[in-house]
């Protein structure tokens, strides 16, 4: 999929991850991803696709976040959506803003909500390690 930076998290095609990095939580994602191998990502048979939303989603940007998840679904499996941090989960400290979407569950089916402001990189690693069988396409 052109233009999307997929990360082959275990370097075996079993888990391809993309980060919708919108705010501070994206830095924690990057810290978790820093040691990843840089081979070209290919989704293996039975592999899982994960879209991580890291940071505050504004109402203006919400359609773009949905579009990324829709595009991820074109890889042939239903993406697993991870709401990383308080802003993605509920709007976080900005829940009362005139411009902020109060959690991506307003837009998407979310599989995991990770609390934190921000969660540490280890929390993301734990979530990815814990994802079991892939969802059926």
């Amino acid at each position: 999929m052109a233009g999307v930076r997929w990360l082959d998290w275990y370097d075996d095609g079993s888990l391809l991850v993309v980060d919708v990095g919108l705010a501070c939580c994206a830095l924690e994602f990057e810290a978790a991803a820093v040691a990843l191998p840089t081979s070209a990502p290919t989704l293996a048979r039975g592999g899982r696709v994960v879209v991580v939303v890291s940071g505050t989603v504004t109402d203006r940007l919400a359609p773009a976040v949905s579009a990324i998840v829709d595009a991820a679904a074109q890889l042939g499996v239903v993406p697993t959506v991870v709401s990383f941090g308080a802003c993605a989960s509920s709007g976080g400290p900005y829940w009362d803003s005139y411009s902020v979407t109060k959690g991506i569950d307003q837009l998407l089916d979310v599989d995991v909500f990770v609390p934190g402001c921000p969660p540490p990189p280890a929390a993301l690693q734990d979530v990815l390690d814990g994802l079991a069988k892939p969802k059926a396409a």
Partner: protein
Amino acid sequence: MALVEQQRISSEQWLGAVRRARDDGFGYFDWLGCVDEIGRSATFRIVLVLRDLDRPEAPPMVLTTEVARDDPRLDSVGSVFAGAGWHEREAAELFGVEFVGGNPRRLLLSPDFSGTPLRKDEVLAARAATGWPGAKEPGEGDAPVSRPGAPAPSRRRMVPPGVPDPAVWGERDPALPPADPAEVAESAVGGRIRRNRR
């Protein structure tokens, strides 16, 4: 040496003053912003900061003007500094100021957004609609207030910052005239609800 050079300009002379400042050497547009002066005067203050890059040690030039809140129009300075365009568009959509001769398009807000969110009388709707956990008094639970041992119903409630006193906005007595913006802005600072002053 002063930290800034500040000039207060009348709104009619705004464009000319900005052009003169540029011609005097302040050719670097730093930023333009807007301040809602409600509570002090019924105006918006427009603030423009320029720098002279040939004299970096010189204080920034700060030009300010005021426009009436009920007719907020000011000449656009986009013809002097093209870079002012985005700043003016942001001030226009967030405060409702019209920059005459400037780009009328929204910058950050979506086309169907209604309201001027940075005005101080613009109520933070999410806060007003959501029950504040801090509204309860010590010893109060979810039970009705009239339970024995509960705080007396006449005790003034606390309101959080950002939500006006319900007597001013939200649950206002319909017999009263509409609250003026200064009243709404002032009552949204939080704390114990003030008793009626009228």
